[in-house]
C-alpha cells in the first residue's frame, strides 16, 4: 500500500498545498487533506491547546487530530520564513513542537524547516532531505521539486487572476474533496471594473488566507459578501508589485511576510477610488494583525476616512447572525460611499 501523507486543512495549507502535493505525488506517495473545518474540529483543537493560542492554531490542532489514523505521516512544516529578512509568525515557527506535545495520538510528523530568511540554499537542502525520506534517487527528487515549483507558479497566477485558493486547486486538478465550492471561474473585480458599463460594488477584503478562505473560521465571508452583491478583492489578487510599492510607504519595514502584504494591500485599498470599502478580518488576539490593524486605522484617519474601513474579529464563539448584520451594514455604507 502506498504511504499516505496527511495535510491539515488549516494555516498556510491555502498557499502551499498544491506544491507539496505535487512534490509528494511525484515521489509516489498519496496525499490526504483533512475535512472542512467544523465545530467538532475546533473543539478537539481547543481541548489540547492553551487558551491563549489563536483560533487558527487551535483549528490546526483540530485538523491534525482528525487525521489521526487516516494517514501514515502528518505534514506540519516549520514555516520560519519564505523570503529574505522576513518571518511569517512566531507561532508557525514553533508549530511542530506544539503539535508533537499536544497531539499525542499522532504517529509521525513530517516537519521540514522552511527558512529562506538568509538564502534559498537552506530551503533546497531541506526539500532534498524531505525527498530522501521516500527515495534515494536524487534525480527523482529534483524532478519532483521542479514540478512542484511549476505548480506553485501556476497556482499563484490563478490567485492573481481572481480565484480563491480552493477554486484554483480545483482548476489545477489537485483538489479531490467532494465539496465543489464555486467552480464557475470568477474574475478579478479590479480588472473587470475598467471596461464595465455599470460600476460594480467592490470590497477589499484583508485577512490571513486561513481565515477568509476557511468557510467556518471566516464565517463564509466571501459568499456572504457576494450574495449581497459585492465583488471581493483579496490581497492574493493584487500583483506583488502593487503590494511592495504600497508597503514601502511604511518607514519601518514590516518583518512579517503576511503582515507586510496585508499592510501593502490595506494601503492600496485605502487609496480613494480603488475599492468602495476595506474590510479587515482577523482572529482574536492575533499578534501581527493587532499592529497592522492599528497602522491601517491611522492611515484611514489620515486620509479623512474617505474609504469605509471596518475590522471584524472572529473567535471560537463568533455567531453567524452577528457577522451577517455587520456585513450588511458595512455593504450599505460602502454602497453609499460609491454613489457619493
Amino acid at each position, binding site marked *: 500500500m502506498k504511504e499516505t501523507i496527511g495535510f491539515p486543512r488549516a494555516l498556510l495549507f491555502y498557499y502551499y498545498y498544491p506544491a507539496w502535493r505535487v512534490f509528494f505525488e511525484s515521489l509516489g506517495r498519496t496525499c490526504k487533506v483533512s475535512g472542512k473545518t467544523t465545530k467538532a474540529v475546533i473543539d478537539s483543537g481547543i481541548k489540547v*491547546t*492553551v487558551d*491563549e*493560542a489563536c483560533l487558527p492554531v487551535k483549528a490546526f490542532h483540530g485538523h491534525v487530530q482528525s487525521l489521526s489514523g487516516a494517514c501514515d505521516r502528518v505534514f506540519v512544516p*516549520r514555516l*520560519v520564513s519564505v523570503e529574505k*529578512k*522576513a*518571518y*511569517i*509568525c*512566531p*507561532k508557525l*515557527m*514553533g508549530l511542530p*513542537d*506544539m503539535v508533537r*506535545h*499536544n497531539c499525542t495520538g499522532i504517529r509521525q510528523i513530517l516537519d521540514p*524547516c522552511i527558512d529562506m530568511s538568509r538564502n534559498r540554499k537552506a530551503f533546497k537542502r531541506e526539500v532534498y532531505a524531505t525527498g530522501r525520506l521516500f527515495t534515494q534517487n536524487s534525480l527523482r527528487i529534483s524532478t519532483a521539486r521542479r514540478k512542484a515549483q511549476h505548480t506553485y507558479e501556476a497556482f499563484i497566477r490563478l490567485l492573481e487572476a481572481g480565484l480563491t485558493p480552493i477554486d484554483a486547486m480545483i482548476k489545477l486538478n489537485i483538489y479531490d474533496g467532494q465539496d465543489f465550492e464555486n467552480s464557475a471561474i470568477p474574475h478579478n473585480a479590479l480588472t473587470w471594473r475598467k471596461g464595465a458599463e455599470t460600476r460594480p460594488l467592490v470590497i477589499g477584503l484583508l485577512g490571513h488566507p486561513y481565515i477568509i478562505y476557511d468557510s467556518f473560521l471566516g464565517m463564509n465571508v466571501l459568499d456572504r459578501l457576494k450574495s449581497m452583491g459585492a465583488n471581493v478583492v483579496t490581497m492574493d489578487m493584487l500583483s506583488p508589485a502593487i503590494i511592495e510599492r504600497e508597503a514601502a510607504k*511604511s*518607514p*519601518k519595514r*514590516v*518583518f*512579517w511576510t503576511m503582515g507586510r502584504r496585508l499592510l501593502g494591500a490595506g494601503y492600496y485599498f485605502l487609496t480613494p477610488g480603488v475599492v468602495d470599502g476595506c474590510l479587515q478580518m482577523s482572529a*482574536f*488576539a*492575533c*499578534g*501581527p*494583525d*493587532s*499592529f497592522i*490593524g*492599528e*497602522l491601517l*486605522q*491611522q492611515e484611514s*484617519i*489620515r486620509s479623512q476616512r474617505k474609504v469605509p474601513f471596518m475590522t471584524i474579529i472572529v473567535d471560537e464563539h463568533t455567531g453567524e447572525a452577528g457577522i451577517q448584520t455587520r456585513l450588511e451594514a458595512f455593504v450599505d455604507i460602502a454602497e453609499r460611499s460609491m454613489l457619493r
Partner: protein
Amino acid sequence: MKLTFARLGNSHIAGKALLEALGIDVVLPPPPTKRTMSLGSLHSPEFACLPLKVNIGNYLEALEKGADTIVMVGGIGPCRLGLYGEVQRQILEGLGYDFKMIVVEPPQGRLDHVIRQLREITGAQPVTQYIRAGHIGWSKLTAIDALEKLALELRPFEESRGCVSSALEAALKCIDEADSPKAVAFALENGKEAMKSVCRKTDSKKPRIGIVGEVFMVLEPFVNCEIEKCLGEMGVLVYRSIYLSDWIVEHVVKDAFRIFRKSKLPYELAKPYLCHFVGGHGVETIASTVDYARQGLDGVIQVAPFTCMPEIIAQDLLPTVSRDLGIPVMTLVFDEHSSGTGVLTRLEAFIDLVQMSRRARR
C-alpha cells in the same frame, strides 16, 4: 531637546545617568500608576501586548511633563517589539503630539550604524565622553541588578514585613544620586550592608521558586503586580531568570561586536521541547525552566503579557517540561485588567502546592 524613554523596572536610573553624562536633558516618565495604564490602553490597539500599552502611557505622561524627543529600541522580528517604535509614533502623532521619535535599531554587527544612531541623539562629542558616560551608566546598571538580586535572597528572612524592600528603595536612591563610578560602588556597598542589617540568619530551608518569561513582565514590578516582593514576603526564595545587564551583554554587546559567540546554552537546554528560536524569550523561558528543574528548585512561574506570541508557544510546551522533570509550573498572564489580589491568591495556592510536593518528596 528634552529626551524621554519608557520605563523598565529600575533601569531608568542607569539610563538617566548615561544620557545626563552626555549633557542631554532627560525627562523621566513618572512612576507608572493606574492612570498610566488607563491612558496607555485607551490609545493602544486592543490586542497589542501589555508593554506597548504601558510604554504609550509612559510617553503620554512624559510628554505632559514637557519631553519632546522619545528614544525607543527597534528590532528585526519576529517579536512585535521590533515594530513598537513605528506603531507608537503613529499613535502619538495621531493624538496630535509634536515630538521626535528616535528608534535605535539593533547593530547586527554594524558598529558604524550604532555610532551614527548615537550621534543622532547626542550630537558630536569626543570619544572619551562616550566612554565616561558608558562607564557610569553601566556601573549603575550592574549595581541595581546586584541590589535587586540581593533583595530576592534576603526577603524571606527579613525581620519585619517590607523592611528589605524599603532598604532596597533607599539604596537605589543613593545609587541614583551617585555622580561617579566610585560613588556608585560606595553606595552599592552601603546599600548591601543596610539590607543585610535588617535580616535574621539566612540558613533555614525555604522553598525556591524561579521566575521565567517575557523580559518586560519579569523586570517591571508594576505590571507583574510586584510578584517578587509578594513571593519574598511569603517566605520564598525567588530566582529571577533575567537581569537587564546580562540581557544587554547577550543581545546588544554581542550583536555589535560579532567577535564573541552568542551563548548556545538556552537552545541546547530547550531542544527536547522546542528546537527552533521563536522570537522574544520563548526559547529562554523553556531553557530556564529546564535549568531550574535541574538545579532542584521547587517550582517555576512563567509571567507573560496577554497575546505575547513567543510566550504562548512556551506556555503550550511548559506542561510537558513540568511532567518530564517533575517541577510544578504555573503561568500567569497579565493585561491591563490584572489585579494584585487575584495574583496574590494564585501565588498562595501555588506555594501551598509547592510545599505539599516538597513534603511528598522527602
